[in-house]
């Protein structure tokens, strides 16, 4: 690999934020590197400076506190699989982690890297969307939180300012009785880029659905929630007709393209199939 760049390896978070602020727009944060190094090698990016977060160890904690689960930004996909809290409070995220890449990449790839890479196929994002996840963005100017569903502004563009790092990702502990799941449709079982990703979450109470969340990957410029489809079921009894209607709405709300993996037509059809399937499973699990 041929590339020239400067490398900063800060020892802790304040040092990282200072370095990032000093670098202006020229620095690219480096976490697990499973996107960054691939992109440099293929000349998709040519950063002047890499800011290696590998020594900022305090960002690798998973905590449960005051009704929220919080992941440090350097939590790896492997860490997710090893965490009882994540299994308990975010089964859809665990399912996504399980089908994410292969073991070697899971050991290095981080949650923040997956969120920040902005890929429409980022597998952790749909499950985080259905959990109502929030990002903490920090800079020398201070910290702010932002709903994940507001983070992306278009294909590979987002609300992060150049001097900001994602430092945490958190979500409220789901209400008891709620059920979430994720399905990755891909062309092979290991190390595959998702063709269609679907995450759903809902709770059943008094025979009706509540907290309905449906999020999709690889079928639009960014991972997205399909709110019209959610609205079809919200507060309604989960009849097969409504599930079919929600699935149809989801298929309409996305905007998939043709690429080397599949056509847009196939993807759209699969959104319908998989949304219906996951909703049906969630409702069965709730009953």
């Amino acid at each position: 690999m041929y590339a020239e760049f400067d490398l900063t390896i800060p020892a802790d978070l304040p040092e990282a934020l200072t370095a990032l602020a000093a670098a202006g727009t020229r620095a690219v944060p480096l976490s697990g590197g499973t996107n960054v190094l691939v992109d440099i090698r293929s000349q998709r990016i040519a950063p002047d400076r890499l800011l290696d977060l590998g020594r900022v160890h305090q960002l690798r904690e998973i905590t449960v506190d005051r009704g929220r689960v919080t992941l440090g930004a350097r939590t790896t996909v492997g860490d997710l699989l090893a965490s009882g809290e994540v299994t308990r409070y975010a089964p859809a995220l665990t399912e996504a982690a399980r089908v994410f890449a292969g073991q070697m990449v899971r050991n290095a790839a981080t949650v923040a890297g997956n969120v920040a890479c902005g890929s429409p196929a980022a597998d952790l994002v749909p499950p985080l969307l259905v959990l109502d996840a929030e990002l903490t963005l920090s800079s020398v100017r201070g910290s702010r939180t932002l709903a994940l569903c507001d983070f992306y502004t278009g294909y590979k563009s987002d609300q992060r300012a150049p001097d900001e790092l994602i430092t945490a990702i958190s979500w409220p502990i789901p209400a008891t009785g709620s059920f979430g799941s994720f399905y990755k449709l891909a062309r092979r079982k290991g190390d595959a880029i998702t063709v269609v990703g679907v995450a759903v979450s809902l709770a059943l109470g008094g025979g009706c659905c509540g907290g309905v969340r449906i999020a999709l990957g690889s079928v639009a410029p960014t991972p997205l929630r399909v709110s019209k489809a959610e609205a079809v079921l919200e507060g309604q009894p989960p009849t097969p007709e409504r599930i079919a209607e929600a699935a149809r709405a989801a298929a309409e709300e996305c905007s998939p393209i043709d690429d080397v993996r599949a056509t847009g037509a196939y993807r759209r059809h699969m959104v319908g199939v998989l949304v219906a399937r996951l909703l049906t499973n969630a409702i069965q699990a709730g009953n």
Partner: protein
Amino acid sequence: MSDVDTIQRNLRFSQIGKSLTRTDSPGKATGRTPYAGDYVMPGMLHAKVLRADLASARLKRLDVSKARAMPGVACVLTAQDMPDRAIATDIPGQTGRARLKTDQQILVKERVRYFGEPLALIAAETADIAEKARRLIEVELEPIPGVYDPEEALKPGAPVVQGTDNVVATHKIRKGDTEAGFAAADVVVENTYITPFQEHAFLEPEVGLAWIDENEVITIRVCTQVIEHFRAVADAIGVPHNKLRIMGALVGGGFGGKEDVTVETYLAILAQKTRRPVRLEFSREDSFVGHGNRHAMKLKYRTGVTRDGKITALDVQVIADAGAYVYLSPYVLLYCAVNAPGPYRVDNLNVFARAVATNNMFTSAFRGFGGIQAAAAYEQQMDEVANAIGMDPLEFRRQNLLQTGDPISTGFVPPSAIWTEKCVELAWQALGEPAPAPGGSIRIGRGIAAFQQSYGRLTFLHDTSEAWVGIEMDGTVTVRSGVTDIGAGQASSLAQIAAEVLGVTLPNVNVYNSDSQMTPLAGTTTASRALYMTGNAARLAAQAVRDRLAEVAAELFKAEPAQIGMEFNRVLVIDDPERSMPIAELVRVCASRGVHRSELAIFRAPFTDVLDPETGQGQAHPDYAYGAHAIEVAVDTETGEVTVLKSVAAHDVGQCINRAAVEGQIHGGVQNGLGYALSEEMLYKEGRLITPSFSEYLMPTAMDMPPVASIILESRSGLGPFGSKGIGEPSMTPVAPAVANAIADAIGVRVFEMPITPERIWRALQEARARGCR
């Protein structure tokens, strides 16, 4: 000979047939094995290749002046610097046969014919400088209309890529009377099967190091299947054959992709020019366009059959995409034609096969070599025909399978046993109880595929192989042979053979191999021939040494030479094993008497003329291997996703030399075949490869592999040492059609084009629903 005879030829082996630790295993397991890319030299330069980024163009301008001027750049070469240089691309390795006149430009002179065709070579003090210099070269390409579909390329007025009409090769096989055969048929079934390009995707991309030695010999250490390209490379750069030396190394995978010349010519040219050691390593992207891929083919099968299941006629029309240059296309196509009816008795046969040039990536050798495309078609067709007459696919196969002593398509009777039927039965039985249907949208299906695949090269190439075996005074054995070891244990199996014959244990044998000037030339490691050819040569050499030792031993023990046994490093009298001594002691006695303790042997395959050009009758190969594969899949009929649940291989390998290595080949063949059937796809847009990385070119990973069961039969009837056949290619050949048949069984419709992706399954089901079938 009958099956019983062959079994009773059983010998008591002390080394052969066992799963002994291969001689190359410890180094690989510990990571100590040096591969070709690990070699470095003082003062070494690093090379890069600049490639065209259009598939059909005229080179208008190539300005290398900035690159040449860059500090640290030792040399930049273009076609202008070597105006009359060309490289031969057909018939790899040793054979006296005249070539096909397919010599091609080494660097683009004027016309670019495929995406990635090399334009310039750069050598610099570091790889980074070479890369920077590459980016400084200014290229102006003028696009010219290309042709990217072989059927289009056949049309009058199509852009001409090769020759006058793009037809690179034509083969015909005609036998019996197909017209009468079709007239006698109750049912005629016609289908067209499409098989895809495939990339070898070895772990180790092409790499090598060249230098000029003290005798002015251009020496190249390179990962290759064929060190005997030294002749072609010497011719290309204008030096005598004995002044060019190619040394191999343990190779990180070949599969046919290192059968043609890759980096060697560039290295030789750069070393000659700079007089310094030069290293060239292909990136993965280079590798995708740096060696010929598997031919995509379209195979039209028309089968006449009676209601009771007898095939009365078969007509096969094949079009193969040869890509932009000829390479091995004529031979690949010949394998396809010869194997077109598969392991079945077809008395009325007509095969017409053409390989056609396009501006796609050139295609050449790949495990299975044309035979595999035929298998993908004939085995799917067997199921379709069975369906059409309402017969069980196994029963239909049983009725038509070749039996030992039957002639194949070319009229040739394979000299060995044909145990296909046994393999079909055993593989099918081993699937056991079907997986319980999980309900919902999941359907379970099963498929079988039998095959015929040659081992040994085309007999009109007059193939030979040499090996030298010697025994040392401490009782250790040395084998010298040019054979390349591409990861299947080729060197280790020679050691195991020498150990068996000379009665020593495997760790006492060392093999020196893969050096075109220092080891006896053994030919190519291709065509499932290395064991057959070089194994026989090693056996002959070892036997000659053994006979001389046994004579002395007989004298010492006052016994007959026939009574002398050698095993586990001792020599003994078979009926009276108390009379024994260490082999080392015997060797010392022999040495003191001046007995010749080494031998150089040559093994010759059968030599024939070419097949009759009109009828295709005659002998094409020394012999054939047979077997079968059974697959069970689960298919999600809503999404089209396929999960391979079970995979059973049953092969008559003749005789295992190393059982674990045979199983290794079978496992690898399954992985390779599953990718071919299900997911591997080289997509071109106007000849430009748009899937040049492993995130788009999808080989099955460990997570995709099913458990693989191997049923290994040993008819001991093969032409290889101890009755062995070959397993390198055969292990892959039946896998893809077995998968295709299992999927069709599961969902009730067939996807006629591989890879059988989820989307293709979904479409086939939708079309079937639209037709109201289900």
